[in-house]
């Protein structure tokens, strides 16, 4: 295998880039070539004009972007608050909570939507509590099939992705800084603002941009809400390709979606490299 410095082997051993060829060839066949075909298919005459001019595409683009931005903002705020409590106001069981978060990350996203159906669905726990308490026939919670339901599910599912890098960053924070600040009379909220927040910024930036990309690409959560009113770009790709068998249009939407998320992902890699994460 690839060793660069074995001089006595120089005659027989291959240059190290040769060893990189087999996996790259596999990747090219199963991923790069299919992706190139999607781009080629999208170039069918008139496909771009049709799709980009259509109302449904513009709606989906706007919905996708605002849902992703709002979810990311929600995850950042919620993740920061929860991580600060776990790291700096530790309680018995805080370790178990961070274990739980790791497990949470290994479950698929659509489970959250399924759970929300039981919590806030038309016959769920929240509406059940309301009807039991007031005697009304139906409860007031009907947001699940609207974009707000998707937003709640995405914030729930993606917050742990922000908390993990934050907890890692907090574990390296010098606690003496906090002690000094508080012995000088700083109130906890001021310490959070002036000591903890600046330290957390790189981790927040890295976690936030990862969550932004994942929200742009999220499919399971939107599919499970079954809402006709909420169409995101991945849903549009699925609808065009599988439900309408319009592959050229699906490929156009796919190219736009890839451009959007790969662009953001490149940004994320830059940010996280600078953050050292």
């Amino acid at each position, binding site marked *: 295998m690839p060793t660069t410095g074995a001089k006595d*082997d120089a005659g027989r051993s291959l240059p190290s880039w040769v060893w990189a060829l087999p996996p790259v060839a596999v990747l090219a066949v199963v*991923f790069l070539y299919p992706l190139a075909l999607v781009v080629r298919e999208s170039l069918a005459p008139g496909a771009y004009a049709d799709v980009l001019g259509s109302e449904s595409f513009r709606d989906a683009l706007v919905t996708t972007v605002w849902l992703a931005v709002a979810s990311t903002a929600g995850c950042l705020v*919620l993740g920061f608050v929860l991580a600060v409590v776990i790291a700096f106001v*530790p309680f018995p069981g805080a370790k178990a909570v961070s274990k739980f978060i790791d497990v949470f990350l290994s479950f698929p996203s*659509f489970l959250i939507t399924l759970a929300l159906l039981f919590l806030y669905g038309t016959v769920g*726990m929240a509406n059940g509590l309301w009807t039991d308490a007031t005697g009304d026939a139906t409860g007031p919670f009907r947001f699940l099939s609207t974009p707000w339901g998707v937003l709640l599910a995405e914030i729930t599912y993606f917050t742990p992705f922000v908390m993990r890098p934050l907890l890692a960053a907090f574990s390296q924070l010098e606690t003496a800084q906090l002690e000094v600040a508080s012995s000088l009379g700083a109130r906890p909220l001021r310490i959070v603002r002036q000591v903890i927040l600046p330290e957390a910024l790189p981790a927040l930036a890295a976690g936030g941009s990862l969550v932004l990309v994942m929200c*742009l690409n999220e499919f399971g959560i939107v599919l499970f809400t079954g809402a006709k009113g909420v169409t995101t770009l991945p849903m549009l790709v699925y609808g065009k390709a599988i439900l309408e068998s319009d592959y050229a249009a699906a490929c156009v939407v796919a190219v736009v979606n890839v451009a959007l998320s790969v662009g*953001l992902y490149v940004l994320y890699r830059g940010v996280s490299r600078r953050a050292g994460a």
Partner: protein
Amino acid sequence: MLVHSRTGRWTAWAGFAVLFVPLFALPLLVIVAASFSTHWSGAFPSGPTTAHYTAAVRGESLQALTTSLVTAVTASVVALTVGTWAALAAAALRKRGRRVLDALFMLPVAVPSVVVGLAVLVAFSQPPVLLNGTRWIVILAHTVLVTAFAYQSVSAALLRLDPMYEQAAASLGARPAYVLLRVKLPLLLPSLNAAAGLCFALSMGELSATMMLYPPDWTPLPVLIFTATDRGSLFTGSALAVVLMTATLLALLAVSRIRTKASYR
């Protein structure tokens, strides 16, 4: 310690509980509760039953579980092999080559899974390779999706690896292949295990790409959960979801046990 006063501390904990319990603990609990019940019209589920589970380990559902397990194991093994090979090859390259390989192998993370599904569907529904309608197209798509994570974990582990060990082995006259098999791979074993667990869990829960290309005779568990909830059988769906979560957790637990054994080396 950030908050010194007792009331302040309790306020922080209460705030934490108010946010954490309904958002993160409750969803998993209601799925488990729903899987054991037949109705949910009031505040709490009613009509306790285990019928959903007896149905979940039979016929179609059992087949979906084995389908998911076979897909996840195959995809993880192939992804680990390709990902580890690529990570080892990248580590031996100079800076620019390594960045190219990093970019290539991390690309599937950034591309939406639905698009990966579409791309695989478009490419393998036409000659030279026809896979559409077979189980292999599902396994192939899962492999593409998880290879990036295998590559990422292994190359992160390679960065942390102390080069002293392989230099010592090489200076004692060990051939490159011997260094790889007897020194590098054993040292990487814990991270390979962690990567295997990650790949397995991701593939078990994969829905987006699978929805684009599953054939009728190769229906993984997430697709079955979706079709169940889509036709309104929420309780059957949640029993299947509990089966999915349990299978994933058991596999992760098994993998973490191997890891503790390997770390004694």
